[in-house]
Structure formats: structure tokens, C-alpha cells
């Protein structure tokens, strides 16, 4: 069977070189794609930063979901708590899987963006030629002898064509993934509002305890203040209290006014003695301490909002850089055509040089 295999006599180096050149020009004329490396790097860098931040937030939310399920004040029964916990963990895990999937996609893009190595192709061709020669067919041996000197040129042509194929695939993959990747990042951005809400409410649950205690102390002070006749000392004390109340952060104006004390003595007010004044002073100090604790939680909410705002900005930047990558892939076609033309001419030059050397 192998002995019947005929290699046409006309199958020579010149035809191969011409074929390669013509094919390369055809490819060039069809279209060209260049990978915008800068845009690709920016996208990957934004993606990696966003992924790290998001995974940390999502893992924290998983811990929060567990915490909520076990919270003593959670009004749900044990079965409902468990069911909700499972749903929440599943939803958060789906987000983590989405990040993993985009990472896989990015790895594919990196592979497509990487160029082929001519030396490796030449080695493969040399190995292929050596093995063909071992078949002992004169026609095959002659073919290998004829073609082996141009393995280097063929390798270069193969690299050009391979890189063209890969770049086209890269462009296709970037264009096709616009909808899913931007959509996934949209969902993560929408989630960030809700994650922020959950975190805020968990902080507020702790702040409520401070507020309860603060309100209790204020009511006690008000009750005492209304018992005594008005005096400069009492006015000063209440003025100090009202100033402290003004320090409450992020609190509603109506609530601040309600926590302030404007003495309205009822019944038959009496003069406060020194012990009673001392007691009221202690209350004012205790209220001041509660306000500090209350404000510490308000600061936590503020920090949380700042972090979540940054997170949102990061997700938006990742989306924008992916859109820019897509635009870059399409806009770079003109540049790519010039580059491809230069590569093709270089290849053609190498073929001519080879022919000239052969003729000498």
C-alpha cells in the first residue's frame, strides 16, 4: 500500500513557498485581528483585584448568613432558619463559581493571546521528516530531502497562520462574552447594595442596644430634671446634655430633638440637693459614653458604605475595561493588517533569500 503512494514530481520547494505566500496573503486580505495587549492587561488586572475583593466579601457574607441563622433574636423557627441558610449559602456559592468561571475564560484568552513558537514547529517538522524517511520509500525520502531545507520558512508561515487563527478566536471570544461577563458583573453590582444593607442592619442591631440604653438614661435624667426647680446649675447641666445629644451621628433630627431635655417642671418642684445634682452629673456622663459607643457603630456603617462604594467602582471598572478590550480588538484590525503585511513580506523575503542561496 505504502509502495503505491506516489508523490507528484512537481511537488517541489518553489511550489511550497509560493503556496505558503499566497495563503498568507489570502489570510491577510480576509481580515486581521490584533490583540490590544494594554487593554487586555488592564482588564485582567482589574478583574484580579475585583475578584479578590469580591471573594472576600462573599466569604464574609457566608459567615454572616451562619451568624444570622444562629442569632438569638432571629424571629424564625429552626427549620425556616436552616432552609434560609441553605438558600443563602447556595446563592453565595453560585457567585464564587461565577468568579471561577470568568477566571477559566481569562485563562483561555491568555492561551489564545500567546503566540506559537516557530522552533517547536520546526522540531516537529524535522521529526516528521525523519520518520517519513524511515519508511524506505524513495518518493517519500526525496520529498523529505526537498522540503527539509525550508522547514524554517514553513514554521514561520505556520506561526503566522496559527497566530491569525488564535487572534480571530480571541476576538470572537471577547465579543461573544460581552453579554455574559457584563451581565455577571451587573448582578454582582446589584448584590453589593443588598450586601451593604445586610451588613448595615447587623451593625444597627448592635447600635440598637446602645440606643435603648441611651434612651433609658435620657428618660431617667429628664424625669429627675423635671422634679427640680429651675436653676443655673441645672440649666448648665442640661445644656451640656443637649450638646452631647447633638453629637449623635447620622441620627434623625426629630430623634435628636426628642432626646434633648427642655425642663418642664410639673407638680411642686423642689430644689435639688448636692447628691441629686451629682446623680444627674453621673447620668450626663453616662449618656456621653453611650453616645460615643453609638457613634462608633455609626462610624462602622460609614466605613462599610465607603468600602462598598469602592467595591462597586471596582466592578464597574472591570466592566468598562472588558468593553474597552472589545473595542480595542475591533479597532486594532487596521494596525494588525499592517503588522501582518510586514510579517508576510518578511516571510517572502526569507523565501527569496533561500532560493538565491540555493541557486549559488
Amino acid at each position, binding site marked *: 500500500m505504502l509502495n503505491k503512494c506516489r508523490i507528484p514530481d512537481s511537488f517541489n520547494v518553489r511550489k511550497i513557498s509560493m503556496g505558503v505566500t499566497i495563503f498568507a496573503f489570502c489570510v491577510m486580505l480576509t481580515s486581521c485581528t490584533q490583540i490590544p495587549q494594554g487593554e487586555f492587561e488592564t482588564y485582567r488586572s482589574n478583574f484580579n483585584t475585583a475578584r479578590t475583593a469580591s471573594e472576600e466579601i462573599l466569604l464574609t457574607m457566608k459567615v454572616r448568613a451562619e451568624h444570622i441563622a444562629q442569632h438569638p433574636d432571629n424571629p*424564625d423557627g429552626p427549620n425556616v432558619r436552616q432552609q434560609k441558610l441553605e438558600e443563602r449559602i447556595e446563592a453565595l456559592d453560585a457567585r464564587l463559581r461565577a468568579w471561577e468561571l470568568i477566571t477559566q475564560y481569562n485563562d483561555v484568552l491568555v492561551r489564545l493571546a500567546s503566540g506559537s513558537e516557530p522552533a517547536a514547529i520546526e522540531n516537529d517538522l524535522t521529526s516528521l521528516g525523519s520518520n517519513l524517511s524511515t519508511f524506505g520509500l524513495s518518493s517519500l525520502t526525496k520529498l523529505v530531502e526537498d522540503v527539509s531545507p525550508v522547514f524554517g520558512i514553513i514554521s514561520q508561515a505556520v506561526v503566522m497562520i496559527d497566530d491569525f487563527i488564535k487572534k480571530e478566536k480571541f476576538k470572537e471570544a471577547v465579543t461573544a462574552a460581552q453579554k455574559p461577563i457584563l451581565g455577571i458583573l451587573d448582578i454582582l453590582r446589584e448584590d453589593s447594595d443588598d450586601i451593604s444593607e445586610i451588613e448595615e442592619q447587623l451593625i444597627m*442591631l448592635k447600635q440598637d442596644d446602645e440606643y435603648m440604653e441611651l434612651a433609658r438614661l435620657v428618660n431617667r435624667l429628664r424625669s429627675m430634671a423635671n422634679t427640680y426647680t429651675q436653676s443655673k446649675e441645672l440649666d448648665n447641666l442640661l445644656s451640656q446634655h443637649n450638646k452631647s445629644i447633638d453629637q449623635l451621628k447620622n441620627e434623625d433630627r426629630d430623634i435628636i430633638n426628642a432626646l434633648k431635655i427642655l425642663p418642664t417642671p410639673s407638680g411642686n418642684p423642689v430644689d435639688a440637693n448636692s447628691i441629686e445634682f451629682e446623680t444627674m452629673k453621673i447620668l450626663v456622663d453616662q449618656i456621653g459614653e453611650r453616645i460615643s459607643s453609638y457613634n462608633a457603630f455609626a462610624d462602622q456603617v460609614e466605613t462599610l458604605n465607603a468600602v462598598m462604594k469602592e467595591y462597586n467602582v471596582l466592578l464597574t471598572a472591570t466592566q468598562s475595561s472588558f468593553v474597552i478590550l472589545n473595542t480595542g480588538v475591533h479597532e486594532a484590525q487596521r494596525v494588525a493588517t499592517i503588522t501582518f503585511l510586514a510579517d508576510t513580506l518578511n516571510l517572502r523575503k526569507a523565501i527569496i533569500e533561500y532560493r538565491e542561496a540555493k541557486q549559488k
Partner: protein
Amino acid sequence: MSKSTKKTSAYYKDAIRKLRLYLAVETDEENCEEAAAKIREYRFKIIDEAFDRIAKRTQRLTTLMYDLQAIIANASKTDTLSDAIGGLKNIVNETSVIVNPPDNNGDT
């Protein structure tokens, strides 16, 4: 955030604000405890709604993930000439071993 649940959350937040206002002047311990319990309940409702909104998006997320998986599968199947040459080299290599078996001096 969906409009309906946002409205409900806003309702709970407004209720919490009113309960805090009530606590600012209420002196009865029992009433205060009751108001505090209501605040906690509303906070858990807001948390529940936020988690529900996240969970509701999961279906959309899954669909987008399927789309991306298909794109990854398509982009991964890139047949290049160098792969073809590599494949051909392996076939020829295997064939040459069959056509020209290596000397086996150990044969009986």
C-alpha cells in the same frame, strides 16, 4: 434592588425610626422592651429581603454562566496548524514503529 422590596424595606426603616422616636420619650420598661423587640424583628425582615433579592438573581446568574461556559468550550477548541503538525508527527512516529519495528535481540 427591586422596587417592591425596596418599598417594603423603606417601610420597615420608617417604622424603626418611629419606634426609636417613641423610645426617646417612653419611660415604661415593658413598652420599651416591646418596641425594642419590634425594631429587631424589622431589622431581620430587612435582612431577609436583602438575601431574597440576592437569591432571586441566582437564576439569571446561572443562565449567564451557561452562556459563558459555551463560549469557553468554543474558544478552547482551537485547531491550529502547529497542533495538526504535532498530531501528524505522532501518527507517523507510531506508523514508523509498526513499519520498522525495533530490533528485538531477546526474541527466542
